[in-house]
């Protein structure tokens, strides 16, 4: 078969999500979307805009307002031949579904030694910085990287969003697909019209550098690149890695980079204690301890609930905090 024409479109991250959903729904009748306001409204962020018109309300399903219901029924649908893509309106509202994800979605395969599986995707916008009301800004990815049996991915740009979403829908196991709200419309990028995947478990070097490695993901990629470029202008060469998948981590890419630079700064907006930073430090300890020239620095959200938006700029890691960490590992 001839390869598809290599047309591209300039899309935002949220449009790339829609495009990924559309691509997979055209390919397979088994891909269905469930969520609150995903149908007629096209999602509160318009992530499913136009899909009900194309695929009908039997495949783009406005559910009752019940997250446990959405995830619980998606588990049944997935075990019985469908590929549900369930939307949580915000990650901060996933908690009523936590039981279903923790006790069922993530462990049905192991409970049945593979006889039953749950090939479903849970999509959720997340993160602070958009002046959203309370609870809407939570970054609780670590609750799920800690949960055995579910993969966690976070695109930071439109190209990765479409490719990772398609890979997630094709994945035989549950995947939590986290969409940084701050990146939804922050930039446009050429996104291929055709189907392509970005492999789950693979990070990407966003900027090469020699002296410091920044490990980050999601909305913090931009902040990290800013700080890296600023450091560059002061003669410090910084490599920035977008992890893209938080579970399983790209061990090879991470260890290669930190062994090259010997200095690491981890940046995430989720709270520090028990955050992904801790897991990254373990990984570096296991793979690269003797290469390290300085203790690893973490620039993260604090061990506090995300404050209401009048204070959220203080909560979020910003360029000065990242810069200060870069100087600390350089001057150690």
């Amino acid at each position, binding site marked *: 078969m001839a390869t598809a024409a290599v047309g591209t479109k300039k899309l935002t991250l949220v449009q790339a999500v829609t495009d990924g959903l559309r691509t997979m729904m055209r390919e397979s009748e088994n891909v269905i979307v469930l969520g609150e306001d995903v149908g007629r409204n096209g999602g509160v962020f318009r992530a499913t805009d136009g899909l009900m018109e194309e695929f009908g309300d039997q495949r783009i399903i406005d559910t009752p307002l*019940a997250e446990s219901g959405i995830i619980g029924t998606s588990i049944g649908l997935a075990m019985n031949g469908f590929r549900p893509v369930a939307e949580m309106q915000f990650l901060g509202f996933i908690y009523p579904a936590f039981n279903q994800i923790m006790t069922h979605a993530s462990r049905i395969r192991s409970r049945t030694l593979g006889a039953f599986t749950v090939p479903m995707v849970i999509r959720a916008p997340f993160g602070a910085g958009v002046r959203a009301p309370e609870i809407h800004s939570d970054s609780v990815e670590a609750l799920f990287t800690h949960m055995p049996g579910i993969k966690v991915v976070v695109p930071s740009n439109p190209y990765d969003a479409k490719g990772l979403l398609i890979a997630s829908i094709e994945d035989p196991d549950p995947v939590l697909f986290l969409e940084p709200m701050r990146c939804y419309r922050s930039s446009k990028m050429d996104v291929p019209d055709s189907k392509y995947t970005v492999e789950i478990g693979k990070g990407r070097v966003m900027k090469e550098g020699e002296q410091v490695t920044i490990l980050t993901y999601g909305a913090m990629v931009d902040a990290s690149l800013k700080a890296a470029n600023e450091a560059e202008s002061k003669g410090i060469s910084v490599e920035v890695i977008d992890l893209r998948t938080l579970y399983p981590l790209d061990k090879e890419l991470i260890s290669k980079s930190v062994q090259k630079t010997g200095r690491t700064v981890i940046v995430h907006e989720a709270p520090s204690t028990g955050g992904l930073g801790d897991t990254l430090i373990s990984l570096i300890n296991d793979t690269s301890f003797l290469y390290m020239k300085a203790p690893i620095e973490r620039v993260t959200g604090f061990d506090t609930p995300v404050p*209401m938006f*009048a204070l959220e700029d203080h909560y979020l890691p910003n360029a000065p905090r990242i810069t*200060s960490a870069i100087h600390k590992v350089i001057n150690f």
Partner: protein
Amino acid sequence: METQFPKKQILNEDGVVVDDAYKSLLDESLVKTLYTKMLRARLFDRKGVNLQRQGRIGTYVPFEGQEAAQIGSSMAMEEGDWMFPTYRDHGATLTFGHSLKNVLLYWKGRQEGCIPPEGIKIFPPAVPIASQLLHATGAAWAEKMKGTDRASIVYFGDGATSEGDFHEGLNFASVFNIPVVFFNQNNGFAISVPVEKQMKSKTIAQKAVGYDIEGIRLDGNDVFAVYFHTKAAVEKARAGGGPTLIEAVTWRYGAHTTADDPSKYRDQNESSIRRETTDPLARLEKFMQQEGIWESSWQKELEQDITLEIEAAVNEMENEQPPHLNDMFDHVFAENPWPIEDQKEAYAHVRGE
């Protein structure tokens, strides 16, 4: 079910009292108070939408159209009772004694917005849908255990009835005979999802049957119906008669929030028509005119006074000192554990403090 749970009315759309049993209870001062509180809520709400448009506050949640439901019910509560609102119920909380300034601060992204004035028992607005039904049940349970006759009222929408917490709240209240009023505002939509797609049941009141508690359906734009039926439910609760589920059928004229575009999912003409035909304030005005207790000079003066009161609160909100960033660190626990203390210090250091 619609016949078993008829939409109760005292004041019809034309401002005529249709339930004679209440005629003698409608004294002028009560009527004027209800009108005053509804007008205050409406003017506040319009101010909220404007402030958001001008970028002076963040996303705002309007409730215009739901004033009778919120004011009638909150007026039925007394000092010492508890109120558990959602993000859309500042009409109720302001009537129950919340401060205009703090409610405005809430929409300005300030934690102070969650704090009611001293002695007024209003929980912070529940953002996770339906979670508050259980808190209201618990707080009322505490009153019962302490041997008081105080009760809780909890607000929630039609969409909220789909969450597990709604059912758990009703069941606990039923099992333990808790003095709580579950006050549902069925405004026809949960964001874009119409109530007919939210549930197959024809009424929300009928959901009470499953828990063997009383369910009442009423015209939520009829402030008399809301006030008297809620009052009866609270009195029953105080006397040990247990919980009641009230469904107040109403409509929000505007968007779900200022970030929402209702034209995506409904014809906004419907709102204009309802404003003409079923508006809670217009209906009360008609009644007052027919009763001869309406003077346009009174109304004008009232509107002026309220406008001044709101403007003063907006000023206070805008002149409030910016929040201290330590507010974020210093209230997570009674005492900061070392990780928070370390983080606070490190951040101060980066800021050159």
